[in-house]
């Protein structure tokens, strides 16, 4: 792997990977350390890199498992949450597949795209989808009508879809959401 390929891999996956580790550990500094470590390892073990065909799967699996392992060590003797136990027993045994990686990448792209929406549009979308507020709550909060919220939401979805246009493949949507009845 040459340096520019490596840099490309880093640019595309650094933030998504940090968030994979962060969702497990809840500690952003630790998450960044884990991800940087994995990237250094990849760079320094070129043999391994060539032998491992699916480098992306390798990266995501390493990051997840290392975050889980650190958490496990921290939690020995402390209370282990059900979620962590679940992640351990279910997810830990399998590598992260391409589909899941695609999902992380699209999620990251949505995150970036929201910032490029018109401010009001971004605010409505974030309150509704990220913070989980109802349309009427948003209408109250922002002193606008529910109709306006609906319009802004529609606009946000339309714009986001346009920004993500080449990222989402139809086949992938079938896998993730199934058919809309």
């Amino acid at each position, binding site marked *: 792997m040459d340096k520019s390929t490596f840099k490309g891999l*880093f640019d595309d996956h650094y933030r998504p990977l940090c968030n994979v580790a962060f969702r497990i550990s809840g500690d952003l500094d630790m998450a960044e350390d884990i991800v940087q470590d994995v990237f250094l390892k990849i760079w320094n073990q070129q043999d391994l890199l060539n032998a491992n065909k699916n480098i992306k799967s390798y990266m995501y699996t390493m990051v997840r498992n290392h975050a889980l392992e650190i958490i496990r060590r921290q939690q020995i003797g402390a209370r282990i949450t059900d979620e962590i136990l679940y992640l351990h027993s279910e997810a830990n045994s399998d590598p992260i597949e391409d589909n899941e990686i695609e999902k992380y990448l699209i999620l990251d792209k949505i995150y970036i795209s929201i910032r490029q929406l018109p401010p009001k549009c971004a605010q409505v979308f974030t309150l509704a989808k990220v913070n989980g507020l109802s349309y009427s709550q948003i209408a109250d909060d922002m002193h606008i009508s529910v109709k306006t919220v609906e319009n802004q939401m*529609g606009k946000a979805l339309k714009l986001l879809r346009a920004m993500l246009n080449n990222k989402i493949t139809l086949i992938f949507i079938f896998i993730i959401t199934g058919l809309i009845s």
Partner: protein
Amino acid sequence: MNLIKTISQLINGNVTKDEQAKLNDWKHEAEENLKALKEMQFIDELSPLLQNYQDVNTQKAWDKIHGQNQVTITKSNFDLRKVAAIFLVLICAISLFYFGNSYISNSENLVYDGNKTQSIQLTDGSDITLEKNSTLKSTDYREVALEGNAYFDIAKNPERPFTVHVQGGKVLVLGTEFQIKTRKERTSISVTEGKVKVVFSNKEFLLTAGQFIILSPYEQEFLSNHDITPSNWKNNVLVFENKSLKHVMESIAAYYDFRLEWPSKEMPDACKINTRFENETLDQVMSELEILTGLNFEISGKKIVIKSFKC
């Protein structure tokens, strides 16, 4: 009709029957419409995962790992002999240890060896410190074959035990820390944390933390209470604080892969030893203990025989 608004209402679960019908018509008008709807629904379903999504400074992180000058190309120093050796190990591993684990789909056929101690991280989160001139072959997910010495820190997975194959046997673990040394027909295994099951010559041994076993075709010997912890072994440092001579000697014997012969169980041992050894030879270590305790000993073959001491 404002379709985009209707889609938004649909997502919010607040759509009238009339609007729903119109949307259905529109959806089936063109493939493009259906695609658009699905994509928007997909964005909608994925977005809640953005709660607590963290921004990071990718450029700064890049500068950090790049600036440390750690991103340098390490050239693989392959020569023909090494390739042949790897090949040989590969054949050995396949012929000796193929137990038909074909249900494991993601096999990782990787071989690690080299003239420097190296740290290997497996995809399951396990860490292995492989000593120089040792060979580790990853034959499958959660399965390796070892020739030489290595320290294992295995990630827990009750569903799938981690297996290390050594000549004449195998070691099964659920999630623990232990060390394996192999030399020709002799294999020693010491456990730092957790439990390890050893299968050797049709016999099974269960080892717990602090225990240590030496395996050869002729004998299997259990030992315990040695003091090799991952930190001091990895850094080639042995640290003792207020330890008895017997304890120190057991650790040293294990460290140098010697066997210890202690005078007798009744031998009083009032020594309180505080010392530290770093990258020292067995001779150097023994002469320091000689000064500290007036130790009278003999080294014969792979055995340290303690005769007497004064403390």
